[in-house]
């Protein structure tokens, strides 16, 4: 796949940055002229991944969250959301719908939503080192070339 465009951003794991993060990604993607549905899907998936970094990876602390977005030929969008937090003990279990260690106000749907709202979700995690979530989605873009 030929890379057409790329952006990266780094921000602190404060919950007030959740809106900023999904809007920034949506804004970058918007040059592909996506549908409102596609934008909502991406915003939702990014919001889930960033919330995981804040609620789980950096539970008792504030750390850096790294987002990298690559746009490939054919309107394929690859979004990496990375933290250097506590890591996930059991990725398979964490990805099961309704599993949560986040307490009563968390639905345990984060990964299920990411999977449902994008085409591909990849999770690489190492305890004590951090987690990288990669989301991939092909947009039925109305612009052939970026």
């Amino acid at each position, binding site marked *: 796949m030929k890379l057409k465009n790329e952006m990266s951003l780094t921000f602190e794991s404060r919950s007030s940055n959740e809106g900023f993060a999904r809007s920034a990604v949506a804004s970058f993607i918007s040059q592909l002229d996506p549908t*409102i549905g596609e934008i909502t899907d991406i*915003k939702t998936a990014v919001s889930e991944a960033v*919330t995981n970094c*804040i609620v789980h990876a950096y539970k008792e602390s504030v750390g850096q969250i790294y987002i990298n977005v690559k746009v490939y030929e054919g309107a394929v969008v690859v979004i990496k959301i990375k933290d250097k937090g506590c890591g996930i003990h059991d990725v398979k279990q964490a990805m099961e719908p309704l599993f949560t260690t986040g307490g009563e*106000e968390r*639905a345990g*749907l*984060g990964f299920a*939503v990411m999977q*449902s709202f994008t085409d591909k979700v990849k999770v690489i995690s190492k305890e004590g080192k951090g987690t990288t979530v990669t989301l991939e989605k092909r947009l039925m873009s109305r612009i052939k070339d970026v």
Partner: protein
Amino acid sequence: MDVKIITDHGEMTAKLYGEIDHHRAREMREMIDSAAERNKPSILYLDFGGVTFMDSSGIGLIMGRYRTMNLLGGEVRVLNIPKSMERMVELSGLSALNLFAKGSEKNEVKK
């Protein structure tokens, strides 16, 4: 304001506005719960008609209020979930709890 609370004949409506994520759900939860504990409504309506975006924190907000109202001996009804958020509700399995009503059903219930 993100939440508008309306009380009427022992029932309470919380109208939610804007985007619901983990950050904003916390403030909404505090406002709704403190008003519910004060008013002890028989039914709490959560009105999503003014919500422009929600991630799974919106589902957590509904689940949490379901528990709150159980403790207070009342019920929860969810109104006006926007079309774009229906997939989220389906994923959650919450539809099995029968909390979801169309906006117009509320008036029928109240009359």
